[in-house]
């Protein structure tokens, strides 16, 4: 049996810049209703927005999944490609492969993954080129 008590999935589409942040706002709203501490909530919101942006900027499409257990919130970002060849490089601050379009909007500073890592209590990323990337972030709530 799964150990989560709530599990929501929010699809995120490639290049959907206009609606960037919608999924994160929905996650934040839901967690606020559930009474999550506001400091933790802000960390979750930043991490989920960064993940959402990455899906929009880099992926062929994917989803954000929010799971709540009695002790933690788990955010999962899952996409269907293109995958990251060198994860350690992608994790470096300032390194970015964002498109010109994304940079014009003020994204692509190479802060996404480091920012997720900094805000989450646990951070795990796996990726396979041609298959996809999965990021799992944990936030302790109790």
């Amino acid at each position, binding site marked *: 049996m799964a150990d989560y008590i709530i599990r929501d999935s929010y699809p995120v589409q490639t290049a959907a*810049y*206009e609606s*960037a*942040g*919608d999924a*994160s*706002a929905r996650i*934040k709203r839901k967690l606020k209703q559930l009474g999550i501490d506001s400091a933790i909530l*802000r960390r979750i*919101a*930043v991490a989920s*927005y*960064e993940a959402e*942006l990455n899906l929009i900027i880099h992926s062929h499409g994917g989803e954000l999944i929010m799971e709540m257990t009695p002790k933690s919130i788990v955010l999962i970002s899952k996409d269907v490609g293109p995958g990251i060849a060198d994860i350690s490089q992608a994790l470096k601050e300032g390194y970015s492969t964002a498109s010109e379009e994304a940079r014009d*909007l*003020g*994204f*692509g*500073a*190479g*802060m*996404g993954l*480091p*920012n997720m890592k*900094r805000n989450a209590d646990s951070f795990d990323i796996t990726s396979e080129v041609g298959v996809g990337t999965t990021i799992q972030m944990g936030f302790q709530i109790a």
Partner: protein
Amino acid sequence: MKVVDLMHLLEAENLTKEVSLEGEVTCGYSCDLLSWVLAHGKQGMGWATVQSHVNVIAVSVLMEMACVILVEGVEPEDATLAKALEEGMPILSTEKTAYEVCGIMCKAGVAVPGR
């Protein structure tokens, strides 16, 4: 100070008339790289920028900022304004540069955000 006080201080125009300007501005900032703002933005921030697209509102709302200050007469896109009204995020518009805005905020005692 409140957003409304900052508006007067900056001689700025309130572009979001239906939104309350009673929120407290607890720190000030200027940056146009949204990714950077996501890493360094704070709650209660008065954020000066030339970025006018809708993602500015997503960022400011997620960071629970006090207001967005569009500098040098930059006009928000329609979607930005609509989103700001929907989310209750004040947008102030000023002809001043970000440099001037920050100078005024600093002089008025608006804090530098803690790291």
